[in-house]
């Protein structure tokens, strides 16, 4: 099995419609499953996609036979289109300073380089469902599922944990004596890479290990202020050099 080469083509365009429908249905089921009253720890993303239509109800198999995408096909199509986010050829909006977007990222990370925590409930016994949304990434009613940037890693929940109690019944317990403040201050994320001269392409100011897919953060589904102004160009490293020093790559003096 080979993984798709992200530099070859727009990975989003390559998703067949069937996959998108499956993803959509799975997502609806997922959100239905998470519709709990205590589910309030999802930060809204600042650049949420416009919601064009209400979500249509999931169809029975019998209904699907007659109307593949249901009675409201137009709505469904629009919803799917909004999930994928803007096209790489759409104009990129000016979304203010990148520093705000970088700060926004830190809410789910303990320091630059820490794996982000999961802002929604997940199945606790398997990581099989993560890729439903995080494979190519999608937007859904103001939520943003970023595409995973290290496709070879399959045990997602090994590094990414939920940001709220996954189990019920905690209110009955006495307070945890270990629940004390922690004085750790994490390293901030870099905002912009250095340029050799004023209009030179900036260098990559952060590690690239396990961040093989630039479009995970800088692509069309990235936070607006972190998006590349030229999403149609796919070979990022051609112009934006990654520094081995920043990555603490083998053999680099520290």
């Amino acid at each position: 099995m080979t993984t798709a080469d992200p530099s070859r083509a727009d990975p989003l365009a390559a998703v067949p419609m069937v996959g998108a429908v499956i993803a959509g249905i799975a997502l609806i089921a997922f959100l239905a499953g998470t519709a709990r009253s205590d589910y309030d720890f999802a930060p809204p993303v600042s650049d949420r996609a416009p919601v064009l239509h209400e979500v249509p109800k999931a169809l029975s198999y019998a209904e699907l036979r007659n109307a593949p995408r249901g009675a409201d096909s137009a709505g469904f199509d629009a919803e799917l289109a909004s999930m994928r986010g803007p096209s790489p050829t759409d104009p990129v909006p000016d979304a203010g300073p990148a520093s705000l977007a970088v700060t926004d990222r830190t809410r789910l990370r303990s320091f630059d380089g820490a794996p982000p925590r999961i802002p929604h409930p997940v199945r606790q016994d398997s990581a099989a469902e993560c890729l439903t949304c995080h494979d190519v990434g999608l937007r859904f009613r103001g939520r943003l599922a970023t595409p995973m940037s290290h496709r070879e890693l399959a045990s997602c929940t090994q590094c990414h944990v939920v940001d709220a109690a996954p189990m019920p019944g905690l209110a009955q317990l006495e307070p945890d004596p270990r629940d004390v403040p922690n004085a750790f201050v994490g390293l901030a994320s870099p905002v912009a890479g250095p340029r050799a001269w004023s209009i030179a392409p900036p260098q990559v100011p952060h590690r690239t290990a396990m961040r093989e897919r630039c479009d995970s953060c800088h692509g069309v589904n990235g936070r607006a202020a972190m998006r590349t102004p030229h999403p149609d160009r796919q070979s990022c490293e051609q112009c934006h050099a990654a520094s081995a020093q920043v990555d603490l790559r083998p053999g680099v003096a520290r």
Partner: protein
Amino acid sequence: MPVVGAVLHLRPGLEPPTELDDPRITVGERNGDKLPIVVVTDHRREDRQLLEQLEASPHVHAVFVAFVDHSDLVEVSP
């Protein structure tokens, strides 16, 4: 075949590093502490490695890349 044009910022008062004595490197005309070079290598990793090596030299303050051409590059995974 990657072609990279770069400027070495030499440490004040120091001579260019001996690493420049390399068939893959062409050295240009020195301007004060700045030395333009062109690096032609077979592979993108190789040029990065070479530039890092130069940057690690005690004679070199920094390396700035001024020109890159990877246009005919066919990447082969290791």
